[in-house]
């Protein structure tokens, strides 16, 4: 399978009867996702897109095998919904909620870590393996962005991802699996934690990181590469190179303080282990060509 999800992965939708939930359930199925059931408390017995709706995750997993859960749940109820998914034994969870309280996010990541699960998000578009499956909301019909191929993409952004990925496609490549870890200060999963999956994935030849100023996630990736845990070519694009110190520019997590989290530090870390850092989105495509040569794209 591809990273995180492919067309066989059995996906549950929490909040399936809501406006967003039902709209994107339709699109996820359209993209190839194996949606097996949905959950909305109080709506058991209904169907959405031909899938049965259950009152709770526990009642759903009692009836249907589930491997991953997609949450369309308001931010203030996200912690409860994630814990409910974990309680149901689900180990892959994507939450797109934008506005999860910080202290909730800490508890979500804590719970995921202690239960050996992976929570992607919040504040993300989700996860997509173009042409195969997606959990989240991507305009997968825009071929110049979401073309199937052999480049892994990890990102903290939404629109910028479209911008950069379009350049990857323009350079003649396609995307194997794109993981949006989200723009929150405490994402459920960090870049570096995805790298071993990309390393093991025989459908991925190289990985592009779309990062930004603030935090230490890009440095952690460099460390993984330095340790030899990740050995494939790595290209990063980092927004905020010229951002003034101390201003909150970009996502909530994107603030440079006391010299830590600056793009300069990140560039140094990535280049020191043989990774490439593109100054402009366009250069990402150029570096991939340089690193992969005429390998099958």
């Amino acid at each position, binding site marked *: 399978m591809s990273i995180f999800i492919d067309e066989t992965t059995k996906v549950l939708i929490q909040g399936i009867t809501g406006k967003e939930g039902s709209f994107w359930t339709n699109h996820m199925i359209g993209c190839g996702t194996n949606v097996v059931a949905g959950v909305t408390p109080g709506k058991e017995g209904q169907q959405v897109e031909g899938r049965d709706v259950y009152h709770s995750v526990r009642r759903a997993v009692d009836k249907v095998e589930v491997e991953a859960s997609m949450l369309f749940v308001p931010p203030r109820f996200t912690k409860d919904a994630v814990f409910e998914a974990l309680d149901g034994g689900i180990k892959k969870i994507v939450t797109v909620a934008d506005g999860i309280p910080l202290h909730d996010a800490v508890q979500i990541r804590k719970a995921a870590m202690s239960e050996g699960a992976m929570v992607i998000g919040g504040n993300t578009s989700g996860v997509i393996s173009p042409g195969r499956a997606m959990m989240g909301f991507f305009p997968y019909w825009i071929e110049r962005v979401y073309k199937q191929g052999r480049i892994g993409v990890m990102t903290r952004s939404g*629109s910028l991802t479209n911008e950069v990925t379009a350049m990857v496609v323009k350079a003649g490549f396609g995307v194997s699996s794109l993981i949006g870890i989200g723009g929150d200060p405490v994402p459920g999963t960090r870049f570096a934690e995805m790298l071993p999956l990309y390393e093991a994935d025989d459908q991925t030849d190289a990985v592009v990181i779309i990062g*930004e100023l603030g935090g230490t996630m890009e440095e952690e990736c460099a460390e993984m590469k330095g340790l030899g845990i990740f050995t494939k070519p790595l290209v990063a694009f980092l927004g905020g190179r010229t951002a003034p110190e101390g201003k909150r*520019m970009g996502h909530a997590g994107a603030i440079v303080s006391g010299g830590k989290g600056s793009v300069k530090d990140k560039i140094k870390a990535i280049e020191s282990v043989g990774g490439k850092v593109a100054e402009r989105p366009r250069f990402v495509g150029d570096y991939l060509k340089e690193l992969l040569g005429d390998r099958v794209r």
Partner: protein
Amino acid sequence: MKLFEYQAKETFRKFGIETPAGVLIKNAEELSDAMAKTSFPIVLKSQLLMGGRGKKGLIRLVSDEAQARKECGELFDSEYNVRKILVEQAVDIKTELYLSITVDPVEAKHMIIACGDGGVEIETLAVESPERIIREYVDPDRGLMPFQIKNVGFSLGLEGDLLKKFSAVLANLYKAFVSSDAELIEINPLFITGDGNIIAGDGKLSIDDNSDFRQPSYGKTRDYYDSDAEYEASLEGIPYLQFDGDISLMCAGAGLTTTVYDLINYEGGTVANYLEFGGPNYKKAVRAMELCLKNDSKVILVVTFGTIARADVMAEGIVDAISRLKPDRPIVTCIRGTNEEDASRILKEAGLVPLYDTEEAVRKAVAIAKGEKP
């Protein structure tokens, strides 16, 4: 949301942490009353959110009434946006500590940071003398345990009665941190006084914006912002930063806006304002353009590449804003994403020239800002 020192100290007191006796004044006239309630020497502390107030001369120790009146006037009339001054009794300081709590995104724990060097900037110390910084990680489910408080106290070299008092301060600060949904709560310096008390000398408290719904509202007032535009933008929920260059950004997506900001700098242009109206704000084109037009910018640059924020809706918003606001400066558009073909048609019908490549749009805007005809 960052709170002012006086608000942080209100929270401290609410949670049982002692602060110096003090009175908040809003103008020089209120100083008399404040002086009546304190005794010299007193400290005049300008209430500003920026760091380094001491170095900028915004905190003054004064020892008599004449000096107090003079310096208070100077502070209110300074180049900074001083709208409130905290008049505080000076404290007999024996030593100073640093104490703060924040979250650690990697460990997914609450992180207590302490240091025997109070008053220093902790970020600077982290780079220069990392070994002097004490860290204690707290499991968010379990909360702060007594042994962890003792760990911090012993690491700071405290014992006996002082350790007991410090333990109460840290336990209370942790309660305040959790109860306030704080991103950061900081006491720096934390005074140990000559008579063996522990008092919060200064305070920082930053509340997580996503937790607004379960926190008392502090109200968005002009006080919190450096400029009128930033204040107005905040009322709309639009991320906005004021600069003094030529190009007004009106972009969608935090990462993309930041990237456009970078690209303008690479191309030799300058930015008048950072403005991001993506996500839930993508229908606020009129308000966004109004904010841009308040600047002396020479061109407005619109760059989007949206998914849920549909390109056609964006384009309609821009066209609507133009027809309503009749902007006096050219607008460069690069609107892509869901329904981008419709967007192009809409822009063209309104007489705009839709571009599809971000770099091209940036170069165009920079050229216009430098005098080229649109």
